[in-house]
């Protein structure tokens, strides 16, 4: 690889120019589009004067309804609350509501349990197996070797065979789960002899480690988020938001089908988001640091957290003190997590080295991001060497995340923060180095958290995110649950209501809801599915249809990314909102 790098350097100035163009062209294009869409959005956005107190976090649909009703009188407004459910849900008393949340969680759990009957990644594929074997192997290593050796190549820990490459919290989690499995089924995690151990009982136990993590981390985080952020929304809307977070198919498929522990890192990130929107910033710092220490992929949210918290601190009387306080929290959490590896510089660097696998290339398999999506036009991997690509990726990522960061530093707001989470994770997903197709879960989380406020975004993002993982799921033999969960998601969106109501929406959403656009897009996706499953690709391009699918999803994601950026810019800051409603009262 170094050899090729030198070659490019020797060839002269042309590749250098190309590098620069490659870095700035997409950004330039994107920012132009953003500007354009921003104009459209601002033009269509106009808020009538507020006649009454408006809940700060109520959904745009409810908001629009209230505005319309408010023109008549107050009694109808109260009626409007009762009349605009996302679902008609049989619950009138507070006890029934609590049980209703329980029922939603129960259904989400049932789906996860049924999915755990399905095969997992790399089932029966010797000698390397898949992610299931990786997780099992980590349990084996952490249970049987001392902490110091977890990230080091030793006789018992061959790093070439699924060496631990996630931060320490993952290692601790593997240790806890490994202990439990060791107590119940020692053969499944026996040192060295258990490689590729697969039987019904150990599968059941392994599946339960994920299920229990989901119940213990992700479910409480989702409940906390809904009760804090949608505090003022009506019950039906809260139920809707909760089920969108819990029943999002991509996470269920990856964690309980493919086999991973994203529920922990995403649950911690959702908890951090809940803390941010409820202004518990210190808690947010701790939870986010934990999330980052579970999977380094959580760094996709870093720009949003950083910008928002910085913006909040700047608004205070003593910004420096606020920043220092938060910094201390982050450092303390990191120190505690990394404590066993901080004995020497070398051991800490050893762990860090494991976390940044540059040798694995720009992207893996078929991922619907910029590099892979445009690889049919520009052969990035052949044009540039790895270090150049890494720099290119870094530059592009920062540029793409910059607008949303600037917005949050200038005018931090709860809704803006969630959109910033979406935008920065999209920026990372599109442009950063070594992106996996599973990383699409990261932009999905803030999109589901915004379920009530950006339903259009959710409807577009979730299906294409699931479709973008189709090649992966097909390899894992999860095609049947893929279709079932996708259909279930569409059905949940289409719940028939007791009464129809029309809502005034801004033009931007109307464009997205235009039936012709939607039908064309769906037809395209359907054709791609048919091609992928029933047509033999030409032998020269054996992965042609995978490339089509990723490019198609990437095109959709790009539009959504631009849309979300525009949205973020015209969300009023919390301060502005309160002052405007006060003025009128």
């Amino acid at each position, binding site marked *: 690889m170094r050899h090729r790098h030198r070659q490019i350097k020797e060839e002269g100035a042309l590749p250098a120019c190309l590098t620069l163009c490659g870095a700035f062209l997409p950004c330039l294009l994107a920012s132009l589009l953003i500007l354009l869409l921003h104009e459209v959005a601002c033009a269509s956005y106009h808020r009538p004067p507020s006649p009454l107190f408006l809940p700060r976090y109520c959904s745009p649909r409810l908001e629009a309804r209230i505005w319309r009703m408010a023109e008549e009188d107050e009694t109808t407004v109260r009626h409007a609350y009762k009349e605009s459910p996302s679902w008609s849900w049989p619950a009138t*008393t507070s006890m029934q509501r609590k049980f209703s949340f*329980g029922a939603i969680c129960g259904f989400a759990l*049932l789906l996860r*349990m049924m999915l755990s*009957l399905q*095969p997992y990644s790399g089932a029966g594929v010797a000698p390397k197996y898949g992610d299931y074997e990786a997780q099992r192997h980590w349990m084996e290593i952490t249970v049987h070797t001392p902490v110091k050796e977890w990230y080091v190549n030793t006789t018992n820990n061959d790093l070439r065979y699924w060496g631990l490459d996630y931060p320490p919290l993952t290692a601790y989690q593997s240790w806890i789960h490994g202990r439990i499995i060791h107590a119940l089924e020692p053969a499944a995690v026996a040192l060295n002899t258990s490689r590729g151990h697969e039987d019904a009982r150990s599968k059941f136990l392994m599946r339960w480690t994920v299920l229990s993590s989901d119940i213990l981390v992700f479910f409480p985080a989702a409940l906390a988020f809904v009760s804090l952020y949608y505090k003022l929304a009506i019950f039906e809307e809260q139920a809707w938001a909760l089920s969108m977070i819990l029943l999002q198919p991509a996470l269920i498929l990856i964690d309980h089908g493919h086999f991973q522990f994203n529920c922990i890192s995403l649950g911690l990130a959702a908890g951090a988001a809940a803390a941010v929107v409820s202004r518990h910033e210190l808690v947010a710092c701790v939870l986010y640091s934990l999330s980052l220490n579970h999977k380094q992929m959580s760094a996709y949210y870093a720009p949003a957290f950083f910008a928002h918290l910085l913006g909040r601190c700047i608004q205070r009387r003593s910004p420096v003190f606020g920043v220092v306080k938060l910094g201390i929290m982050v450092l303390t959490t990191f120190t505690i997590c990394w404590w066993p590896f901080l004995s020497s510089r070398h051991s800490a660097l050893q762990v860090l080295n494991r976390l940044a696998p540059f040798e694995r290339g720009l992207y893996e398999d078929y991922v619907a991001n910029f590099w892979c999506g445009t690889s049919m036009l520009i052969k990035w991997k052949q044009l540039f060497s790895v270090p150049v690509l890494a720099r290119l990726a870094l530059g592009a990522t920062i540029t793409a995340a910059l607008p949303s960061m600037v917005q949050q530093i200038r005018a931090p707001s709860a809704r803006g923060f969630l959109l910033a989470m979406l935008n920065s994770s999209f920026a990372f997903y599109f442009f950063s180095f070594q992106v996996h197709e599973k990383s699409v879960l990261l932009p999905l989380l803030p999109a589901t958290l915004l379920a009530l406020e950006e339903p259009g975004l959710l409807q577009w993002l979730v299906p294409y995110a699931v479709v973008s993982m189709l090649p992966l799921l097909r390899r894992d033999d999860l095609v*049947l649950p893929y279709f079932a969960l996708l*259909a279930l998601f569409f059905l949940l969106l289409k719940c028939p209501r007791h009464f129809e109501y029309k809502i005034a929406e801004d033009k931007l959403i109307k464009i997205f809801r235009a039936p012709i656009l939607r039908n064309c897009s769906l037809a395209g996706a359907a054709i791609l599915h048919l091609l992928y499953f029933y047509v033999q690709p030409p032998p020269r391009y054996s992965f042609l249809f995978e490339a089509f699918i990723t490019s198609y999803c990437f095109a959709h994601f790009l539009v959504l990314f631009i849309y979300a950026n525009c949205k973020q810019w015209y969300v009023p800051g919390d301060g502005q909102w309160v002052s405007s409603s006060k003025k009128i009262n």
Partner: protein
Amino acid sequence: MGAADLQYLLWLVGIATCVKVLLVPAYHSTDFEVHRHWLAITHSLPLKEWYSDESSQWTLDYPPFFAFFERFLAIFASWFDPQIVDLVNGQNYAVRSVVLFQRGTVMAADLVLYWGLWEIGSGLSRMRRRILYLVVIFSPGLLIVDHIHFQYNGFLFGILFLSLAAMRDGNDLLGGIYFAALVCFKHLFAIAGPIYFVYILRHYCKGPQKIARFCIMASAVISIVALAFGPFLYHGQMPQLMKRLFPFGRGLCHAYWAPNVWALYSTGDKSATVVMRKLFGVYIDRPKAGLTGGLVGDFTPYAVFPQITPIVSAILVIGSMMPCLVQAWRKPVPNAFIRWVVYTFTCGFMFGWHVHEKASLHMVIPFSVLAVERLEDARAFLFLSVVSTYSLFPLLFESKEYPIKVTLLLLYALVIWLNFSQLFGTSTKDSGDLKAKAASNTELNVQETVKPLIGPVEGAYLGGIMVIEIYGQCFHPLFFGGSFPFVPLMLTSVYCALGMTYYWLDQLHMVLSS
């Protein structure tokens, strides 16, 4: 009944189908191979050999319509994968695509269930209709028996619903035809025959042309039966067919006791044996083949109590049905018909010969139609559906389905509790609510008179289920290790038998008092 209702029904069907698709890789019992073999029999053999074939131990023992149904499915099976319908090479053929195909046929056959639901729902108000759809489509018993264990019950209940809907609407002829067809699909439904007979005789065959009406009904039913059995009669297969349909020689109780009167009777006999030996020193020769030996076809002789013969069982079934038969004779009103049918199924389940625990579905599914109409029935239904689903738990004995069946039951109980308490306004007392209600005294009084959905007795009993389950799952293996594996099963069936008896007495009371 409008487009909105149809949309709602289809929506529920869509969600239920997604759930069923996810259950495809779940455990399936030998019934899967049974049905696969029947596909092979009906596809590769001429009609006259269907009931005499013995190429596998899973011989065809359902009535002819079901065999025709299998023949119909076999057409698609032979397109899908010819090995499925191979009489010899197809045996124990259960690769993933075959499982998917067979499970798919169960899901497709459920369309009849949805049609039946649509018909029976047309007589109800909108709220009740929608709750009925929910209650039947997501019934955990149906999901467990049809979509995990593997059977085709859903579409049979669809036909039953069609028949009941026709009877309720006063179209007795159509109802009778549907019922005759249903019995020709699965003869276990014949237990409701007496009530159909009495009711039709008194309600349909009356007025000036009663003889003519009787003849019309008789010829309609006979032609349906002839359609089913005629071809076999022509080939002289009737004795063989009858031998297959009614295999006497099977014992009173199934290997796993169905939770009915006989489970209690057997327990009484067992404990009497022990008491006699311990207290009086009388050693009674224990008959061979223990009650829970686990073999199909155990004959179960009793040590102390008098033996039960098929005749005794039949007399008890008819005897316990008498109250509703008498009522149907004296006052044949369409409104009460569904209740009578449910009651006869209950009697059949409680006293029948060689009853399988799956038969409890026969009373639960039609009972849901009553449950959405009256509070008392809703309470009984909530109780019954929990007990009957719990009694189905031993069907799924593998650990991977354990969490699924528990969650299914709890979630279902929670959802129907929510829906019923909303429908009947029996919200449990809530401080916020009471304050609101305190404003108007009359409403408060109403609140007090409405009974809660789960009374104290039922609540205590359902709590006991949890105790039994925890004992069976945790404490029993802890105390006894691997020995006495039948004790938790026996406890389950006896405890559920108590609940079923309670429900039966409740229904008897309901029938007598109406």
